[in-house]
């Protein structure tokens, strides 16, 4: 078994914020009616977290749930365990109508660290990044310039961004360009 390779091998850019490609992250896609109690129970039993509400997230350590739509959720965790997690979820869901897939390798993950991250994202995503409108704990499924992406804040100085693996370089370049200190914009209170 080879070590999993991320799209950019952990690329880093230091600017207004530090843009860093995260190590391989486990991601399981769940498509199911998230309001179905059988689905909620199965998720709780396997993951140990409750299904979050609209645009919500739930985290315990490196395990997390990202609400993507009323019938779509991402389960974050260790890359090595994602296949086992798919099997466990499939088991727990039993006859419930659901689709569980390992999508860990379909995506690239970036972290943004630094106080300017709200402005960086507001240059690329049509999202209200004001602190009173987008707080840690929420996730936005949106776009960065021309490609699909989702992001959430861990705290005021760190954010996670996910995009499709094939456009990892494009997204890294976008984020780096937006984080160029020459283009710093202070718009939100820090």
């Amino acid at each position, binding site marked *: *078994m*080879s070590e*999993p*390779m*991320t*799209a950019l091998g952990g690329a880093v850019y230091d600017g207004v914020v530090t843009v860093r490609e995260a190590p*391989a992250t486990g991601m399981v*896609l769940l*498509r*199911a009616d998230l309001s179905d109690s059988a689905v909620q129970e199965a998720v709780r039993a396997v993951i140990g977290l409750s299904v979050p509400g609209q645009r919500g997230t739930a985290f315990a350590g490196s395990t997390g749930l990202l609400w993507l739509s009323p*019938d779509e959720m991402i389960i974050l965790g260790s*890359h090595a365990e994602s*296949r086992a997690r798919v099997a466990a979820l499939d088991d727990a869901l039993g006859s419930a*109508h*659901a*689709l569980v*897939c*390992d*999508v*860990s*390798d*379909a*995506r690239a993950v970036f972290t943004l660290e630094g106080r300017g991250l709200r*402005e960086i994202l*507001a*240059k*690329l*995503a*049509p*999202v*209200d*990044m*004001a602190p009173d*409108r987008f707080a840690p704990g929420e996730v936005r499924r949106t776009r960065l*310039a*021309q*490609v699909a992406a989702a992001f959430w804040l861990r705290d005021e100085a760190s954010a996670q961004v996910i995009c*499709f*693996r*094939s*456009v*990892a*370089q*494009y997204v890294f*370049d*976008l984020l780096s*360009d*937006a984080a160029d200190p*020459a*283009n*710093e*914009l202070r*718009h939100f*209170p820090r």
Partner: protein
Amino acid sequence: MSIRLSTGGRFLNRARPVRFSFNGQRLPGFLGDTLASALLANDQMMVGRSFKYHRARGVVASGSEEPNALVNLGSGNRHEPNQRATTTALFDGLEATSQNHWPSLEFDIGVVNNALMRFLPAGFYYKMFIHPRSFWKHIYEPFIRQSAGLGKAPAPEDQDPDTYEHFYSFVDVLVVGGGVAGLQAALSAAQSGVKVMVIEQSAHWGGRAPVDGGTIDGMDPDAWVEKTLNTLKSMPNVTVHTRLMGAGVYDHGYALAYERLSDHDPDKGGVRHRLWRIRAARIIAATGALERPLSFAGNDLPGVMLASAVRDYVVNYATAPGQSTVVVTNNDDAYRTAIVLKNAGLDVPAIIDARPEGGGALMEEARGLGIRIETGRGIARVRGLRRVVSVQLCEQDGDGAVLEDIPCDAVAMSGGWSPVVHLWSHCGGKLNWNEAGAFFAPDPDRAPTDQTGAPFVYCAGNANGAMDLKTVLQDAVEQSQNVIGSLGCESGDASVPSVAQTQEAPLLPVWLMPAQAPKALRSKAWLDYQNDVKVSDVQLAAQEGFESVEHTKRYTTLGMATDQGKLSNINGLATLSKALGEDIPAVGTTTFRPPYTPISMGAIAGEARGALFQPVRKTPLHDWHEAHGAVWEPVGQWRRPYCFRRDGESTQDAVNREITATRASLGLLDASTLGKIVVKGPDAGRFLDMMYTNMMSTLPVGKCRYGLMCSENGFLSDDGVVARIDDQTWLCHTTTGGADRIHAHMEEWLQTEWWEWKVWTANLTEQYAQIAVVGPQARTVLETLGGLDVSKEALPFMHWVDGTLGGLPVRVYRISFSGELSYEIATPASHGRALWDRLLEAGAAFDATPYGTEALHVMRAEKGFIMIGDETDGTVIPQDLGLHWAISKKKDDFLGKRAQQRTHMTDPDRWKLVGLETLDGSVLPDGAYAVAEGRNANGQRNTEGRVTSTYHSPTLGRGIAMGLVHRGPDRMGEVIRFARDDGETMIEARIVNPVFFDPDGEKQNV
């Protein structure tokens, strides 16, 4: 001559002298100047030539409404045409050149003299260049292109070195305009706690009030502006921005604003322009008003300016456009200019007031300063060639008989003020005619409405038709309260500042000066300076039957230049309405469209340039390909290797080598880009039976089936291999370009038509790297890696199996698109490169040869396999391609079934797929048509077929092709003729079976 005054200048920083150049001449100015004020300060009255007649033109205005003072700015890769000198901040080293002149600004050979001008009337182009039709392309158009046009486009090889970006912002209230109305409206709104963003297009707050005077809350306007601004800045719910112009208003409270960060200081670094993409619940347009010119003969001479602009240049820039300025007006406001000039020690020979009774208190003040006032009078014509020499006084209500010649070197004119209603109008706001002020103002009952039907744009102050300081501030508070109320918020402080101001007498609408001006004068009275439209042109259009203002605009080009008629619109349509004998409101206005003033292409592009112009999608093997000579082919946003060129090889050599090696031994293809959509659920089989033309529900677990997808209209849309994964799960492969489209197609049907069916889909395209291992040694190399039984018995053709190969998790599909023994191996993308490396290593003994898309295409064509996008073009049904075997006759329905039963679809005369072999073995040109006898009704050659795929086959050593031919399959063996690009040379080709190679499939069935 125009001069710099020794004192004053609100905006000037006299401690910071700068130097700039105009047409190569080095000139001095100060920081704080605009290019226009600095040119005037250097007595550069003439700044350009007009568009059509090449007449000398000077600065008219002091802001973004300027029609004349357009210059080329910068040089080399920073060259930019059509920049308004009035909004260009001066900086050290600025380079400007004038436009539209040849050979020089002072002596222009293209200048149209009075005699010739008669031959360039309204609609000239339409009238002159209609016949003969054939002359248009080669004679008329090149001639017009040479003589017309403003400015020069940058050289095509020059790349703009500056950077640009977008910024998304969300506010409750966007206030556009930083004059006293905007500031007061922002203050009133902000006190309720809502999020307010105030944007001002210039570098200065306060708008006109500091120049025009009055007292607010006992303070000079300047002091009040500063105090109010400081209050706003201290509020956490307010942001304020200068150099940020409200460019456009769109549906759903969307607004675009254009920020110029470094135009005034190019060495500042960072982005040059930023496009703000704002979502606002409400927009307050406090965009002020624009002064109108008066229409008299010679009103386009350099030195004839708007009265407000003359005042601005004196007060803000300590620049006097003339030492002796005649003021001509139909209202009181222009008296302020005379008073400012006189108080600055400059001469005002006369104020010519078209009103028989003259004005009010301001007139008395001017009289008190000893200025001569002529009431009921007008200007018959302005004399001068490249600058003003004198004006000829006449009765306003006359035909222009000259009473007196008044020497002067500048004329300050005022025809009244028009509210800037552009932002109100962008999204559908309607206007009412205001009789007293002779202007169009917003009709609050017909406001632009948002998604709930509520008005979302409110105008305030001048923009709303409130024309004096007191009503401006009252209106600002009132509109702000309306906005807050409409948002359901508690209003805060609704108090209106107290105002002391001079009372003004009413204006008299004057659309032509003098009122009975004869044609000789009317044909020299300009309406639109930039497009050279005169009073006589609009009158001619009316005479020729143009009644609609929109038609007249296009016929005369009135208001169609880069200034969008900011100065000319109202005067033009008043002239039209008079000529038509209609009221102005009955004639109506033209439509204002975004942007308010031109914005840079760079700002629109934002970050999308260079490497970020478009996303490039890369497979997990992209880097390997790049390092091994990949010749890239764009496929959607992916880059796929077309072939891998080795040293000394041509692209064709490489393709031939890859095919030969694959057929002889072993080839490897990166197939990761193929779409992989998983479909699961109790109704998944039923769903796929609808999506595909053939039966998918009956596919046994562990097997694969090739399937076709059609649109509702029956046309072939996509194809690929479907694998049954388990009882409820299928994996659908799509074409590379089809992955996202087909996934969306599936979701659309599931969400909008069959929403009660229990089916989930997910696009797993990028989860897997997929590698095709192709050729006689394919099985051997997989056995070398080890871990899976891939024997003929364990893994027959069109089966798949999960397992490990060389320790890597894989799913192996035994499918073939080349006719060879072939496996497609999917592994999670993070292991893709490892699998590729191991295959290369294990395959080295068999000359493992990575191949690209062209080899893939040739090999599939040798086997007669169709390619979506080659054999299909959106008009082709599967039956045309001989794919009847893939169309189920058992199913009640599938998408496209009914359409394929239409008579046209079942017509035996359709063009159908066949193979084509040239008699001489050459390669048919791609897309070539087969020529039939005779000509059609349009005189074109009849055709009976076309080439859809054509290649040189190294396997067969000759050209092979597929094509759609009229009744093709019935004509096997027949020789037909294809035309080369010249339409004359013919190539003969024989109609043959499209399977050129190994028709019995012996190579893959091993």
